[in-house]
């Protein structure tokens, strides 16, 4: 994965709001992953169109934060989700 990768939710994975507590979750086969606010912000930008770079720029604007620092955090978060096959990278 690099700055030009285009992450997207993997097949069979649904971003959902838990109606009981209002919290965002990823639903996938035999699994439910509650998302913290930052991960939710990242995952909801994984359209398959936006590059990692574009996701970072968009988050930097929202958080009024520095792109270089955010890039590391975003890549680490996406790598973990990719290991679990919750996101894949579009070609």
């Amino acid at each position, binding site marked *: 994965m690099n700055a030009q990768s285009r992450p997207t939710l*993997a*097949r*069979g994975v*649904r971003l*959902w709001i*838990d*109606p*009981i507590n209002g919290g965002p*979750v990823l*639903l*996938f*086969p*035999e*699994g*439910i992953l509650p998302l913290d606010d930052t991960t939710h912000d990242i995952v909801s930008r994984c359209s398959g169109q936006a590059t990692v770079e574009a996701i970072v720029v968009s988050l930097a604007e929202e958080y009024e934060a520095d792109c270089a620092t955010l890039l590391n955090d975003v890549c680490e978060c996406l790598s973990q989700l*990719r*290991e*679990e*096959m919750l996101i*894949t*990278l579009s070609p």
Partner: protein
Amino acid sequence: MLLAELTYRCPLHCPYCSNPVAYPGGGELSTEEWRRVAGEASRLGVLQAGFSGGEPLLRVDLPELVAAFRAAGIYTNLITSAVGLTRKRAEELLAAGLDNIQISFQSDEEALANGIAGTAAHQTKLNAARMVRELGFPLTVNVVLHRGNINRIAQIISLAENLEAERLELANTQYYGWAFQNRAALLPTRGQIAQATQVVGEQSRRLLGKMKILFVTPDYYSDRPKPCMNGWGTRFLTVNPVGDVLPCPTASSIKDLRFDNVRERPLACIWNDSESFNRFRGTAWMPLPCAECPQREIDFGGCRCQAALITGDPMVTDPACSLSPYRDKLTAFVESIQSAGEAGPSFDADTSGISFRQNPAA
């Protein structure tokens, strides 16, 4: 997370089936009763349902049931042998909103796979898996491991990779029900588990980002028990074909537990108030050594069904735990397997001595 066991009927006869050896009486829930369960489950906070059995495709109303759970906002996963999964049915399930299909394979190799299933199903499964990929379904491949197939783990991983599955579950047999009856033939040796663990580690790294491999080792080889159901009555419930609601799919192996039924009480009442869900909830029920163990909120004392099966008492520490006073019962059994060597039952030739799963009387 709700497991909907729609029927005990099944075209396969796997000798490790998790269904009860003695089936409960009563007729299968109707379409309308399952629809009501879907609504009650949603209001209770259930986010995901697995449709299982037996073989859930034997319910002709399966697409209607999937649609009912989807309409209630619940993620739906079909856990199937794929026998009966024609293109027409798959298209109906796609239209109903089914989120994922999980197909079981018994091995990568046809004669062995058919021998384990007790029927010629392997080619049907391959055809069905390819067809559901063509339709765009996400696919999980599930293979239950035991001494008769664990040596083929590398080839099994290749099979799932070739089918382009997103997930591969390599679940070692859990020794309840039919599997407990057959455990002397099914438990792999220590060496086989070590070898399989190494292969899974290598292949997981190679397949990163392409296929997720989930590997479950047998707790007979562990020092600590598995955190069964992530705690009794915390996240999981099973509704069986006749409507009984169980805290875990094999809980009927605990002889004195009585289960409430969705025909008689709403699901939320059963979840919150029934004796069977409250018996092992939390930590107050725990005996020593669990009651004073720093792990008690990590493994929850292990598995109640296993405690009952091995010791006769569902209240005691899971004998998989090295701190259990009954651990030597498991250890003696495990060591007897090592001396028997790696030769498993030759499912493609001689299966004498194996109890194959039988269907309930019609």
